């Protein structure tokens, strides 16, 4: 082996290890700096008090969960049906065009979705700053993301399975259900990733549905909502030292949830391979 190759290998190795160390350190700092606050009494169950310097994160947590539930309800049915159309029904050409449209939508920055949601859902459809505007805006974003990821798994189902089922006299609908069942692991992975992404998006909710502080939980779809990511932003930007612990706690929670989500996905991927 030449001198040059050894030098190259070591350079690459050092860069890789440095990147690895920085990434681990970043995650660790965020998690560790927020973790102790989990054990404050009432951190998960109380409302924030005194300009977010006391109390807990209960309404933000519930707000985020409600938003997720709504996004799930809107985007999974539409996304799944769209995916089925792309992989099972549409002619190849059309499917390609639609898929590249979905890929394009995937690369549109999230703030653009937020601004679109503001002008379309909040103003034009007069839904105002509300849970429903935010969830529809997030869904607009999540649907192409889900389709783009899930369609690969449906396509990966061998053609013989479809032909076999049809040859046995199954209808198109039954054949499609068969394909879905064969690719369920992949579809589930896409679903988890989609929800994870919707959970972590901040800019669109900030513009369309979130408020810095409300005194009650949203009970109607047209009520504004407090969420974890937007509250982190609001605290870091607007409040002083004595409130920062709450932002750190929420950030730590979000990172732990993210790691949990990806751990699950990695686990499923490994199961599928075996």
């Amino acid at each position, binding site marked *: 082996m030449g001198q040059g190759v050894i030098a190259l290998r070591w350079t690459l190795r050092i860069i890789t290890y440095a990147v690895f160390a920085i990434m681990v350190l970043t995650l660790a700092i965020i998690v560790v700096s927020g973790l102790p606050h989990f054990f404050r009494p009432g951190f998960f169950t109380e409302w924030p008090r005194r300009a977010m310097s006391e109390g807990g994160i209960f309404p933000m947590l519930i707000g985020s969960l409600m938003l997720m539930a709504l996004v799930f309800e809107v985007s999974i049915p539409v996304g799944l049906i769209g995916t089925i159309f792309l992989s099972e029904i549409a002619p190849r050409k059309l499917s390609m065009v639609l898929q590249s449209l979905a890929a394009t939508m995937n690369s549109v920055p999230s703030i653009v979705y937020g601004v679109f949601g503001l002008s379309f859902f909040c103003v034009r459809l007069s839904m105002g700053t509300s849970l429903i505007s935010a969830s529809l805006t997030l869904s607009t974003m999540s649907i192409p993301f889900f389709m783009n990821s899930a369609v690969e798994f449906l396509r990966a189902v061998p053609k013989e399975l479809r032909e076999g089922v049809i040859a046995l006299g199954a209808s198109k609908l039954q054949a499609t259900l068969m394909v879905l069942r064969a690719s369920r692991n992949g579809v589930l992975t896409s679903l988890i990733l989609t929800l994870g*992404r919707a959970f*972590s998006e901040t800019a669109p909710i900030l513009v369309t549905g979130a408020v810095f502080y409300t005194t009650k939980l949203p009970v109607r779809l047209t009520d504004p909502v407090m969420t974890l990511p937007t509250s982190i932003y609001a605290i870091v930007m607007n409040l002083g030292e004595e409130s920062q612990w709450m932002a750190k706690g929420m950030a730590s929670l979000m990172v732990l949830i993210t790691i949990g989500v990806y751990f699950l996905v990695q686990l499923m991927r490994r199961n599928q391979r075996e």
Partner: protein
Amino acid sequence: MFVLFTSVAAVLVAAALFAIVFFIFSESLRAIREVGWGLFSPNWYPVWELEPEFGVRTMLLNSLILTVWTSVWVWIVGLAVALYLHKYARDREKQVVLRILEYVSGVPSVVFGLFGVLILGDLFLRAGAWTAQNFLNASIVLTILTLPFMTSLTFQSIEKVPSHIVDGAVALGAKDIHVLLVELKYAAPGIVNAMLGVFNRIFGETMIVLMVAGGANVLVRSFFDPIRPLTATLGSEIGEVAVGSLHYSALFFIALLVLSGCLILNVLTNVICRRLERWVKG
């Protein structure tokens, strides 16, 4: 019936993209009509009562400078890590690094924003910088955000190079370095795709520049200058503006710029990647 039903969902998605373009364009029409080329003047004083100014030039330049500078670092480092993982790493190393990168890729950008403001910002002040939130800080945080994306996409496309190509090169007596070049050539479409994707993500990223970049609308001259890219202005002002005002419309013009940048980049990516694929296949 079933066919019709499913096609509706797909059409909905296509319609959404056109709706986005249409709404953002139509809301920005007022600013385009009333301000005209003034939109590209350097000053942005949207709420000044006497003579409001809606110039995006400074923000646009800052956005581009920040994006280009950060992208170049992410490209180089990401490529280096991907090459190491592909060529030299043991299986265990590969798994651990990729797993950590995947975790980082899922972390919400607002959390990285908090990291930049509270932790890196503090370090900056201790090191003697005169601002905690500045160009360099934003650039570092954006690098952490996009490196996993660059690395994993690049790694995947290098791994996908068919083994007979590599074996062929070795059989012809190619040295390690030349084998590497052959692999890079074959992975080029994927790598370029990843590079442009990184550029796109940094250009459109909002939360981080909103929190970490500093927010001053002056052209960047040093690493420690606070800056305000396009998306930061959009994110911070759109929530408070009166709906239908000229300011509102000017903000939609900014959104239009960001959106068109993204769409142009998409078309460019497709064209370049197709060309490269043709070149690779000979």
